């Protein structure tokens, strides 16, 4: 098995509209793959097709060496899937929820598995708390505990850190990296750029179409964008001047600076050169992943218009 996930041409339609349109993704063993894209771009649908919760309309492939069409039941029992919305029983305690999951996965002895998992994720002290009373960070920890307890080789995490504070997010990611180092493969969908940068590889999907795949550096360099950073007083005025100017694709304020991004380096340079420069400093900047994604998000709409 060279790839843990190897799906090709996955299509899912809802009332005739392709929500996922010929998406192919490969994820190698032990890799943390980030799955990025705006809301409603088809991330959740793609993940659900991979773990057998949705039947693809077209496409084929394997997950953990099992056919996504024929072996969906076996895939489900061998992956750990963390849903986007917290979906454990709020009227059960952490321990009771884990007992339930452990029994469904046929883990023996249940007590030892639950105890070790509680310990492992630092939930032991809170094990008797009702899941409904937990804060976002602890809920997420419980959800993670429940989907790693049966020691799956593949973790599919659907926006696991939405609504979680930065400290809990940091700890969560440390946890994920630790598990990847232990050989677990992870596919995680997210909106956060800093999380994308913690992935070995990223896949960017928009309007159901996969637009970019690769390491962060690869994706940034393939986008071939040029970025300038402008610093100075009265940036709002400069922003108004630059918006829609030749060669300028994005203008965005970042604190006391302005980021100007364009696809055509020469044209952008020319426009920047014409700016009244008294009082401003203009320097070339580093294109960020966010710049690339905003660019990617804008493009399909341009071609559609």
């Amino acid at each position, binding site marked *: 098995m060279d790839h843990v996930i190897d799906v090709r041409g996955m299509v899912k339609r809802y009332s005739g509209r392709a929500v996922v349109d010929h998406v192919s993704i490969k994820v190698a063993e032990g890799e943390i793959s980030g799955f990025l894209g705006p809301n409603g771009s088809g991330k959740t649908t793609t993940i659900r097709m991979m773990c057998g919760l*949705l039947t693809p309309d077209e496409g084929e492939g394997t997950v953990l060496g099992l056919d996504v069409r024929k072996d969906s*039941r076996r895939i489900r029992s061998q992956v750990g899937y963390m849903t986007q919305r917290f*979906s454990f*029983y709020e009227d059960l305690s952490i321990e009771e929820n884990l007992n339930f999951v452990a029994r469904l996965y046929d883990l023996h002895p249940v007590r030892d598995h639950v105890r070790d998992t509680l310990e492992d994720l630092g939930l032991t002290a809170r094990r008797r708390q009702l899941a409904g009373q937990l804060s976002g960070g602890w809920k997420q920890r419980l959800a993670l505990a429940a989907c790693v307890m049966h020691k799956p080789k593949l973790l599919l995490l659907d926006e696991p850190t939405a609504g979680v504070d930065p400290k809990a997010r940091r700890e969560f990611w440390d946890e994920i990296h630790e598990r990847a180092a232990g050989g677990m493969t992870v596919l995680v969908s997210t909106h956060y750029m800093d999380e994308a940068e913690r992935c070995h590889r990223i896949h960017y999907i928009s309007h159901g179409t996969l637009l970019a795949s690769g390491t962060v550096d690869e994706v940034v360099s393939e986008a071939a964008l040029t970025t300038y950073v402008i610093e100075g007083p009265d940036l709002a005025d400069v922003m108004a001047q630059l918006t829609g100017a030749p060669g300028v694709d994005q203008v965005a304020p970042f604190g006391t600076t302005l980021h100007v991004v364009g696809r055509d380096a020469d044209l952008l340079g020319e426009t920047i050169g014409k700016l009244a420069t008294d009082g401003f400093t203009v320097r070339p900047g580093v294109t960020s992943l966010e710049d690339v994604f905003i660019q990617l998000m804008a493009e399909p709409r341009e071609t559609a218009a």
Partner: protein
Amino acid sequence: MIAGFSFHRLYALLDKESIQMRRDRITFGMMLGIPLLLLVLFGYAINNDPKHLPTALVTTSQDHYTRAMVTALEMTGYYHFNHIVESAEEAERLFEKGDVSFVVTIPSDFARRVQRNDHPRILIEADATDPSVASGAISTLGTVAAQALLREQPAAAEAAEAMQGQLEVIVHKRYNPEGITQYNVVPGLLGVILQMTMVMMTSMALTRELERGTMENLLSLPATPLEIMLGKILPYLIVGAVQVGVILVAAKLLFSVPFVGGLGLLLAGVLIFVLALVLLGYLISTMARTQMQAMQLAFFFFLPSILLSGFIFPFRGMPGWAQLVGELLPLTHFLRMVRAIMLKGATFDTVANHFGALLLFVFAFAGIALLRFRRTLD
């Protein structure tokens, strides 16, 4: 102006409410469906003075006096002779099964006694478990029989008139001779209460998971549809068992309802009935999207169950189509079974067909529910 009354705000609320109402198809359908259903059911199906009741004739002779009696009874509109048997035992079996409401016995010496003017008598036994069924038929008996004989002997009118006083129609009200309504209603209530609570509770089974968002997780865990179904319904069998115990004890202590049949047989029947009910509830939960819809669907099923099962109104009094709908309700078969066992002391042989019907519901509901259950979120 924030305080006070604003028609703008009221309009906003009304508009939002009506949009939500229109989006919820099931609720919208129920708003139109329930009044219409009630109207049709009450209007056409319910008849408190049932006619054409199935009757068994026990006779060995075919003389014209016997035929005259039969014709006269049929002319009243209450009796429909659909079984002609030769022995009292056969008639008894039909009675216990609930296949007939009356057994008319015309003794073999009837004709001879009429001719001899020697106290001719016929016996009419009525199934009085439901006192209202038999009352109309019995009350008209008085003169009908004698007049029939009168017509048979027009020549000897005088003799016949003399005989009129002598013809004796003996009426036996069986199973509930005093005509106590509770005897009929309380065993029926056992079924109705179970129907209401069991179906409503289990109709939430899957919709609760859907509403709370735990369904996606449940589906992603390795549990089969059969395991999920059984896991959802079996706990309610215990709830049902407690209810059955309470109702039976109360029936005995509060209403002194007679209990002539076997307890084991009754409990076996109740078990199958409750199983059918929880499966029906589970089936509803595979169809409803919200708990509200599940409640409404359960109610939608509950209504005809009460009206068309023979619980409130005599089953035999309903027109054919309503009886047909009634046959499709588990409660109908349960009522027949529970009344036969508790009031008539029926044995398994007699109620086997009711058991069979209830088992059929169990398998049908379970089968459809399993087919409807989606292992995926498609």
